[in-house]
């Protein structure tokens, strides 16, 4: 047992209605090891963790704990078996005290209720194990996020865990906080704990992990030994280089065109440095970067979805006020957000209503007949597959929902489209359709910013590309300088490639 893996997953498969979230995943985890799990959104990391911790049951495959097959009915069973998890969704109650958070649902004491003094003492002991010394009666929410995260880890460890799953533990931490958390994690490894570490900051992964497993589209791409690999190789595995080279645009600018979007030294939450953005009519600019590199934040600042702190955005020569989506839409600058479900689609409204909703201001006359005509025209133009225009948009497939969002904006006759991961989580056929559509629109004179974590897609669709690394724009590539190697280097290392 001492040499075998603490946990071994074999052929884990999980299907959700319409998607295969995990497809035959193998993974093993040894004591005294930090095993990193990386992949873009939708790669299947979270689903895998949920299976590991008993939130979901797998549809196929086997989990072995110390060599014995196990099945967990719920998170409590997994906990009892010694698998502790820090989930991405909060598992803390900020309003309650540190001690409460450590001992919720397992408070010490007898029939006469909770033994508060024992709870305090045990809290201090549990915190000491992760190197913390806190006032355990203070509300957890009053401590910085890193400390809160450490408290969650302390709780997990106090359950006599042998395997610890950390799902993006540093996502909400700043650099210094993240470093102290990583130090604590490596401390735990030294004590023989088996640790699964999910993250998207490659610096952290390479600082902490012993092995790195890359997932992509629900499949395992490979497992790398940290010493024997490079960031470049991992990024390539994540973004799927070479899987489909596809066509590459020549990247020749078609003469001088009118400039439609002009953003100057825009600054705001989520980005570490001010940025400029210029876009000419008929041009598609790709925005490449890993998750968390600031690409969504950039689009939100430009579109007014997030209020910018400084800088200016001009569309077609007119200045846009900060944080005013309506003004941006009126000026012809529109955004399709990355979170299609929570920020884009109105799931209980019909396809017709979803398409018509942004076109007119309030109190403008609306007629069902005209809306239906508009929606029908759009559905045909974008080949939206729906049984009926009165069908709820929430019931459509991801690809069709994305087309509905595009149709919603096309109905407003925009000048600039900001597309945040428009092809994420949709099937291959729809992906190509969306890519073609963006090119068609550009040919008709529309400008677009196209965010994607699939680099071949950026090369296929965009005339120019900008790369983001660690919440900064680090490179702008166009013409002959725009190739896969330069992009990968810029994204992975933060090096400015050949400048524009």
């Amino acid at each position, binding site marked *: 047992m001492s040499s075998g893996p603490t946990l071994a997953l074999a052929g884990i498969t999980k299907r959700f209605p319409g998607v295969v979230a995990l497809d035959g995943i193998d993974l093993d985890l040894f004591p005294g090891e930090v095993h990193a799990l990386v992949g873009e959104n939708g790669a299947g990391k979270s689903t895998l963790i949920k299976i590991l911790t008993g939130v979901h049951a797998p549809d196929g495959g086997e989990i072995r704990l110390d060599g014995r097959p196990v099945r967990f009915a719920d998170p409590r069973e997994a906990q009892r078996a010694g698998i502790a998890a820090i989930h991405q969704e909060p598992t803390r*109650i900020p309003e309650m005290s540190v001690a409460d958070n450590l001992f*919720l649902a397992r408070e010490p004491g007898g029939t006469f209720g909770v033994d508060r003094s024992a709870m305090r003492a045990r809290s201090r002991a549990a915190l000491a194990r992760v190197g913390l010394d806190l006032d355990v009666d203070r509300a957890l929410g009053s401590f910085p996020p890193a400390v809160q995260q450490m408290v969650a880890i302390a709780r997990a460890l106090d359950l006599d865990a042998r395997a610890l799953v950390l799902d993006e533990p540093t996502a909400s931490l700043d650099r210094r906080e993240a470093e102290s958390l990583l130090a604590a994690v490596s401390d735990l490894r030294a004590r023989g704990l088996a640790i699964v570490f999910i993250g998207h900051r490659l610096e952290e992964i390479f600082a902490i992990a012993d092995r790195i497993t890359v997932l992509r589209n629900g499949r395992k791409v490979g497992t790398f030994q940290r010493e024997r690999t490079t960031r470049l190789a991992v990024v390539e595995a994540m973004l799927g280089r070479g899987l489909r080279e596809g066509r590459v645009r020549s990247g020749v600018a078609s003469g001088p065109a009118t400039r439609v979007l002009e953003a100057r030294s825009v600054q705001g939450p989520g980005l570490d440095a001010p940025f400029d953005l210029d876009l000419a009519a008929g041009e598609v600019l790709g925005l490449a970067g890993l998750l968390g590199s600031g690409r969504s934040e950039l689009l939100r600042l430009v579109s007014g979805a997030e209020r910018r702190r400084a800088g200016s955005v001009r569309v077609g020569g007119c200045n846009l006020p900060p944080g005013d989506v309506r003004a941006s839409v009126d000026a012809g600058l529109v955004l399709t957000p990355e979170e299609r479900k929570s920020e884009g689609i109105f799931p209980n409204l019909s396809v017709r209503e979803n398409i018509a909703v942004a076109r007119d201001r309030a109190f403008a006359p609306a007629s069902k007949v005209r809306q239906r005509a508009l929606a029908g025209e759009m559905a045909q133009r974008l080949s939206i597959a729906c049984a009926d225009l009165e069908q709820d948009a929430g019931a459509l497939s991801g690809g069709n929902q994305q087309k509905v969002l595009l149709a919603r904006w096309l109905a407003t006759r925009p000048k600039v489209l900001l597309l945040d991961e428009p092809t994420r989580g949709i099937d291959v056929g729809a992906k190509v359709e969306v890519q073609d559509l963006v090119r068609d629109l550009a040919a008709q004179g529309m400008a677009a910013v196209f965010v994607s974590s699939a680099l071949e897609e950026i090369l296929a669709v965009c005339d120019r590309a900008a790369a983001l690394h660690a919440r900064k724009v680090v490179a702008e590539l166009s013409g002959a300088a725009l190739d896969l190697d330069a992009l990968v280097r810029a994204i992975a290392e933060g090096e400015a490639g050949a400048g524009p």
Partner: protein
Amino acid sequence: MRTWRGISPLARGAGALALLAVVGATLHPGFLSARVALDLLSDNAVLGLATLGASCVMIAGGLDLSVGSLAALASVVLALLLERAGAPPWAAVATVLAMGALLGLSQGALVDALALPPFLVTLSGMFLFRGLALSLAAESIGIAGGKWSALASSSLPLVGGLRLRVGGAVFAAAALALGAFAVRSRLFSRLHALGGDERAARLLGIPVRRTKLAVYALSGAFSALAGVVFALTSASGSSVAGSGLELDAIAAAVVGGVALGPGGGVFRGRGRGGISGACLGVLVFGVIADLILFQGTLSAGWTRVAMGGMLLLFLSLERVLVRRERTA
């Protein structure tokens, strides 16, 4: 700002109470007396007990609109048991409390099993209990039994010849007991966790269903106790008792800092505040009423306006402070 978070609901309630007391003392020399303070407890015992129960539900992120009707039903059943069935007072009270807990429990079961909004479930409970009370007794039933009258006119002797009337004593005892329970019990941490974030609570391994059932049962029992105190103070059981009590109780709880948090959806609280806050809210309510009484205008209107103003003040204060905390 962090210190604010730690002490907030209590400090605000206590501050408001102190401010009102100072205003009262400057306007009326006799305002700050022990007798007035004790009467405050007795006069607001029914509201206080209902608020205690309703606050527990709000802390757990729910809502109970049935407290007033359940109090009325309890008072009617109590009167019937005492007058028609000739039951001894302790047995009648115990029966009524058990009934309250059971009715509360069934509401909790509906909220949990059917995943219905607590607003609707307890709204129908509100109609149902009031209807039951009315069909049991359209007119109020006087309770003339000797034992009950003796109990009703009894009071708790305190130092200096002061006495606390039975209603006030029940409220004070219930508040203290619930307060101690809140500190010691596992149930209360679970309530807070549930109200703070139901999903997180589930992930942390809290038995969500059992906790929900328990809190609605608790609220039911407290509503019934409010009905008992009503029967004590008015020497009757009345099917129209406690009308408007549910919303007053929510208002008092909100003034006391319960469920003031942002988000959480329309029909949910957010697990903030506690028993002491709820008590303070009730006392603020009572002091405002007293102040207006002392003023001699005898208008319920002023009480409501002052209460509304107080609610508004706290809400804006909370908003401003939360905003500042975020930007800080």
